[in-house]
């Protein structure tokens, strides 16, 4: 029997990697992908607790999180495309003016 801890450790590892990715990379697309990784780690937690309590509530919340990820990807990538067409770059620290 796999204890819940193993799943939590896995989720923690993915979460940490995601956080490091968001905080240290300069490329906005990689940062967005790291956020997806964080959401994914959360989903693992929801799934294992849903399994532990024998209900499907966690799975329903995971569906909401995936919906949210879809919305975030659509808007985020839209912003990146618009930004790229104006500034010819996808690096986060060059997004330093509010208006152009």
């Amino acid at each position, binding site marked *: 029997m796999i204890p819940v801890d193993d799943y939590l450790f896995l989720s*923690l590892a993915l979460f940490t990697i995601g*956080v490091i990715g968001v905080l240290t990379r300069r490329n906005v*697309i990689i940062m967005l992908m790291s956020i*997806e990784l964080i959401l994914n780690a959360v989903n693992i937690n929801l*799934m*294992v607790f849903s*399994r*532990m309590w024998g209900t499907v509530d966690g799975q329903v919340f995971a569906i909401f999180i995936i919906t949210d990820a879809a919305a975030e990807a659509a808007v985020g990538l839209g912003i990146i495309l618009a930004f790229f067409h104006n500034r010819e770059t996808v690096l986060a620290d060059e997004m330093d003016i509010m208006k152009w």
Partner: protein
Amino acid sequence: MQTLNQALFIFFAVLAVASAILMVTRRNIVHGAVFLITTLLSTAGIFLLLQAEFLFIVQVILYVGGIMVLFVFVIMLVNLDVSMRQVQFNRQWFVAGALALVLAGQFLFAIWVGRGALRLPAMASEISPKNTEAVADALFSHYMLPFEIASILLLVAMIGAVVMAKRRAG
């Protein structure tokens, strides 16, 4: 059966973590996207181990087949070559990484203190045939309002994306 499950868990977990690390460190974004897809697919495998077959499918169809296609699409539209030659990590990477590790340490401590307290109930011999029905029941009865709110969120996101694209054209 137990050892098989254990072996599958270790396989998926190692695959997920290894490709996640590769995803964050690759210079080439397309390779990063492929590694993220690998992570997402291994996570889908873990969902299957947890008897959440419907979520396995949602993960594969929506995440891998939908969202990641969008990512790859955008990656191909923006010019890769320039950003590949530039510095990949920002100036505060040391502070940021240390903070992330501190955060991870806190979580690790919390899980470590409570380890062994939580256990999965004995696994049914096979995947429950009613998983899809159970999720649908919960989604369309108890979670009806959040479901509608989520659909409005998607609508807003869609309009937002269209507006963003329009402005570029004009």
